């Protein structure tokens, strides 16, 4: 731990807290959104400093690609008037005071519990490392996601599908049609889109032995789809083929789990001989589904410029 590294850490930590404070107090929500996007970028630097490159990849792809585009799109729907919050003088009333006190107590308890953890505390890392040889992969995070905690990941994909159903149900207002993309935007998309597909494939493949995996690959792929949609709007809708692809990852995951039960094992308990292959199959299917889910969350369920005009 050198002084330079400590300077970097403290600078980053202070910057993150400062950004949170500013983006929650600025009255212009556009500026708050930009600070939120910047916050995501800096967060991925923090994950790198905390030796969590897998998390950093996911944060970089989702924070700067998907979430930013989602919030900016929502800002447009709110219009110039809806995007301004009242400047908040923060009059102290009883509710705010008690809320603030409660939050301060929570913070003190959390801080105390963080600082009082024994120095030799190792969490579950020893157990995870001991199980690594049977996991079928050499990246411990991928092993945790797809093997040790595969029930979590299976149900997570189900949650993502539910979110898409919700967005499809809620989307009623047609989007105003976009202007045609100029030559530069066309060029950018034409070069970036194939690269994004390649990088997504690379991350998926690398996930077994290095930082990367299904979520990161899917997020990059979804960002590519969002870029394409921004340049040339297309209708995704809830067509049966889209539904099938969205359900594909979950179905493959579940089918493998059931096959293992039928073969005499336990649900989603990969036999260590085939674990590597099974994990890659599940991850490949999940990447496609998660990418389409994230894209569907952005595109929504209404045609660009279709139907009645916005009032």
């Amino acid at each position, binding site marked *: 731990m050198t002084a330079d590294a400590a300077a970097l850490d403290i600078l980053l930590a202070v910057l993150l807290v400062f950004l949170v404070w500013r983006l929650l107090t600025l009255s212009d929500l556009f500026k708050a959104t930009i600070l939120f996007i910047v916050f995501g970028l800096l967060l991925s630097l923090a994950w790198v400093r905390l*030796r969590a490159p897998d998390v950093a990849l996911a944060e970089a792809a*989702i924070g700067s690609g998907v979430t930013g585009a989602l919030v900016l799109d929502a800002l447009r729907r709110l219009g110039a008037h809806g995007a301004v919050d009242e400047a908040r003088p923060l009059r102290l009333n009883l509710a705010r005071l008690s809320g603030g006190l409660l939050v301060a107590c929570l913070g003190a308890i959390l801080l105390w519990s963080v600082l009082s953890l024994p120095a030799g505390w190792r969490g579950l890392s020893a157990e995870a490392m001991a199980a690594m040889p049977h996991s079928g992969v050499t990246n*411990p995070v991928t092993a945790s996601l797809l093997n040790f905690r595969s029930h979590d990941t299976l149900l997570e994909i189900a*949650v993502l599908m539910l979110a898409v159903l919700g967005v499809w149900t809620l989307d009623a207002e047609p989007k105003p049609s976009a202007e045609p993309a100029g030559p530069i935007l066309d060029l950018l998309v034409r070069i970036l889109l194939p690269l994004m597909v390649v990088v997504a494939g690379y991350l998926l493949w690398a996930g077994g032995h290095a930082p990367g995996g299904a979520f990161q690959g899917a997020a990059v792929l979804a960002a590519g789809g969002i870029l394409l949609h921004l340049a040339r709007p297309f209708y995704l809708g809830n067509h049966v083929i889209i539904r099938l692809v969205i359900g594909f990852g979950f179905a493959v995951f579940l089918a493998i789990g059931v096959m293992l039960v039928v073969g005499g094992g336990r649900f989603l308990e990969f036999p260590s001989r085939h674990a590597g292959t099974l994990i890659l199959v599940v991850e490949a299917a999940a990447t496609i589904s998660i990418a389409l889910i994230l894209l569907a969350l952005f595109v929504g369920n209404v045609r660009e410029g279709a139907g009645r005009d916005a009032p």
Partner: protein
Amino acid sequence: MTTPIVYASAGVAMLCIALFGFLTARHVLRRILALNIVGSGVFMMLVALAARPDPPDPIPHALVMTGIVVGVCVTALALALLRRMFADEGSARLPEDREFG
């Protein structure tokens, strides 16, 4: 090992500021941003504590990655609710927060 402590404290601070912001904000978009940051504060505490052993504990990393992906879906759903409310009622605030319009 001071790095994990620095970031864990920052995570606690982020969580508390964002939680207070979430409780007091009126505009729903700001509430959505605040909720996101509450999540990020929790993630930061988890990952910071996971960074103390060597090699780092992979289980919290996996949990946080799941959390990040679920977080973006929750955000998308909340934004869809906000858009719908704004389209139907013309306000980006919840009914009990609308005394200023």
